[in-house]
């Protein structure tokens, strides 16, 4: 039993919610999402996020548009769809319920 394994499992379970939360605040570029996730130690390796973004987009939770960039090629900016916003709300409810249940023990 290693604490690091348990942490990894917890991060994995909540990563979707964190990504959706970050995107719900503003239209955002993936590299900036990574910066935020890394700052709060939610991801260890960056590559994990890209399949997640594409899966969420394919599931209709996210949408993106291309924007010109000053320093390079155009960048993808993600935003939440209505479906995504609803899903995030449900995720937050479940999270609150879990935290509440866990803290009663």
């Amino acid at each position, binding site marked *: 039993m290693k604490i690091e394994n348990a942490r990894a499992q917890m*991060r994995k379970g909540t990563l979707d919610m964190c990504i959706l939360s970050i995107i719900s605040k503003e239209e955002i570029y*993936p590299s900036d999402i990574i910066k935020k996730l890394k700052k709060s130690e939610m*991801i260890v390796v960056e*590559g*994990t996020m890209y*399949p997640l973004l594409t*899966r969420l987009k394919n599931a209709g939770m996210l949408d993106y548009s291309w924007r010109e960039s000053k320093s390079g090629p155009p960048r993808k900016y993600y935003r939440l769809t209505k479906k995504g916003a609803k899903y995030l709300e449900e995720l937050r409810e479940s999270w609150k319920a879990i935290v509440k249940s866990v803290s009663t023990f």
Partner: protein
Amino acid sequence: MNQTMHINLGGYSFVMDIDAYDLLDEYITSLERHFLHEEGATEILSDIEARMAELFREKLKGSEIVTKKIVSSTIHQMGDASFFEDEHTHEEVLDDRSAGISAGKRLYRDPEDKILGGVCSGIAQYFGVEDPLWIRLFFVVLNIAGGSSFVLYVLLWIIVPIAKTRSERLAMRGEPINIDSIVRSVQDELDDIQDSLSSLKQKVKEEMDFDELNDFHEIKDVFKRYKKKVKNNRSCWCPWDTFRSYPK
């Protein structure tokens, strides 16, 4: 001195050392394999490439050439293919590595150890027979005994793909495809090249008499001067770009 090449990654152009390019190519191939059956694989890969390009630019800090060090630190930051499914901890990945050795094993023809098509050595690799000679003997004996092993051989030659890329060769040997194994196999290949170069040097030294050796040094000087010129003038055609194993 190192040879370099130009690449386009995520919409940026980079000048890379050859060994850095090999490592990057191998990494991207391993990701392609990993996402082969994933919906939106192309999109995931192009996102990852764009991010890597960004990291290269950050790490270059004004220098011009992407080195192997930059590539491997970027790869460590992105994570190797085994990380992508779920975010394991490092210990778990290590466990998978020793436990799952034969999990991804596939039958390929071995281009590095072949007499005809590399079928027998490929089979030997697949079943973990140390010396492909036994498989070869088996085929020959079966043929003499009246079996149709020759037809079988030709059929296998046609059906079984040859292990062309480094990740295919790793899959052939049943080694997991991750950064460590890729780096190791690149290193092995470089060592091989180094060995054959130094033996060539030795041979040249032995076979040339003194006068010829002087000529040789003169030629080398001319090359050196030309190289300097090329360095100062990048648009100049560089004949050894086409000869990747030109000695240092």
